[in-house]
């Protein structure tokens, strides 16, 4: 049988360790208990590292995009965005994007994407009159010009056919170039990728149960609960009058 002083010493040590968890449990427990009054489900938290903990990754690296006179067209992880609006996907690397008279024209190495100015897809197609890869997309007098290894090609007004374009006018073509996305646009995109934020109620609940650190956190909280049980028993044992 453990003697009185030894038991008291271990009881104190355990108490210090468990007190940290007890504080967390007590504070989060009180807040959760009053969730309706505190409206915790409506409070959204948008902390980068916290959202990453939940797998809600945003923009993880520097992003390039194409400036379309005010709005930006961006390809991120295979998805296309106009501003912060998801407008489709591109299988291959983007070559350029231009704002033509009637529509937005985007090109990857093999395909052409036509969008309305609002970002609605009109058509995504492989121009069968051209030989990929496409290496450049530009504009001349409001009309898109595509560059391949075989030369320059210009589309008709409805973007149905591409016809050969004299190579000697290529100096007059304004070529679309990828540029580093400005901070404000990057934040917009990050916001879109991560969604609306995490409800505070869910965070508190996950801190309370330990689930915020996945299975590891859950087992840590289980261990703290077991220690609390041990502490209660040793406390009672110490307090109980001995003969």
């Amino acid at each position, binding site marked *: 049988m453990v003697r009185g002083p030894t038991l008291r010493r271990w009881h104190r040590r355990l108490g210090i360790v468990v007190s940290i968890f007890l504080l967390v449990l007590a504070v989060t427990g009180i807040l959760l208990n009053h969730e309706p009054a505190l409206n915790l489900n409506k409070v959204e938290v948008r902390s980068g590292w916290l959202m990453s903990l939940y797998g809600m990754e945003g923009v993880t690296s520097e992003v390039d995009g194409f400036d379309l006179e005010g709005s930006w067209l961006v390809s991120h992880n295979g998805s296309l965005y106009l501003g912060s609006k998801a407008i489709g996907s591109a299988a291959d690397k983007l070559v350029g994007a231009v704002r033509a008279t009637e529509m937005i024209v985007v090109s990857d190495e093999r395909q052409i994407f036509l969008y309305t100015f609002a970002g609605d897809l009109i058509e995504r197609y*492989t121009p069968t009159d*051209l030989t990929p890869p496409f290496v450049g997309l530009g504009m001349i007098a409001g009309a898109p010009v595509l560059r391949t290894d075989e030369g320059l090609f210009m589309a008709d007004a409805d973007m149905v056919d591409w016809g050969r374009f004299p190579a000697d006018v290529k100096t007059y073509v304004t070529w679309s170039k990828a540029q580093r996305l400005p901070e404000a646009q990057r934040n917009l995109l990050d916001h879109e990728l991560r969604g609306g934020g995490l409800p505070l109620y869910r965070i508190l609940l996950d801190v309370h149960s330990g689930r915020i650190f996945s299975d590891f956190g859950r087992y840590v909280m289980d261990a703290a609960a077991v220690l609390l049980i041990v502490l209660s028993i040793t406390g009672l044992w110490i307090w109980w009058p001995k003969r």
Partner: protein
Amino acid sequence: MRVFSLNLIILLAAILPVHAADVFLEPNVFLAEVFEGDVPSPSFLWLKGDVKETAKEILGRNMGGLRQRYWQADGRTVWIVEEIGKTRPITTGISVKDGAVERVQILIYRESHGWEVRYPFFTDQFQGMTLDAERETSSRVDGISGATLSVRAIVKLVRLSLAFDQLARDGS
């Protein structure tokens, strides 16, 4: 040592699965083959009303876009369409003549698995297939073990092309 390394690289290249986009046939070459060099100008099927509903029923999702281009001549329509197998789109050329599949050709394959669908032993079985009343293929399609999602995607594209062919010939 250098020879050994080279042999190792060649061996690895031979046994590792295909990961990058593989162009089996350029779309323009496919069209030229089907129309024997005399490719007509493209026509458009507008994706609205019945056409949009039909596409949604077959693909199980809304088909993006406002129009789908196709090529039509001599009782034949040709469609270059895409569907995702597992994660990336498979670009497929499908020729329909007099309401029946004439040729299915995998043009660009981007998935890491399931590329066996490119081989004639799979694509040839669609020849002569039509659409039944439920917009299913008129005969059963034999799958490929380990390429279930790619097979499913190609079957959807064949059904879509047959349905679009009907709608295009009806003048939608």
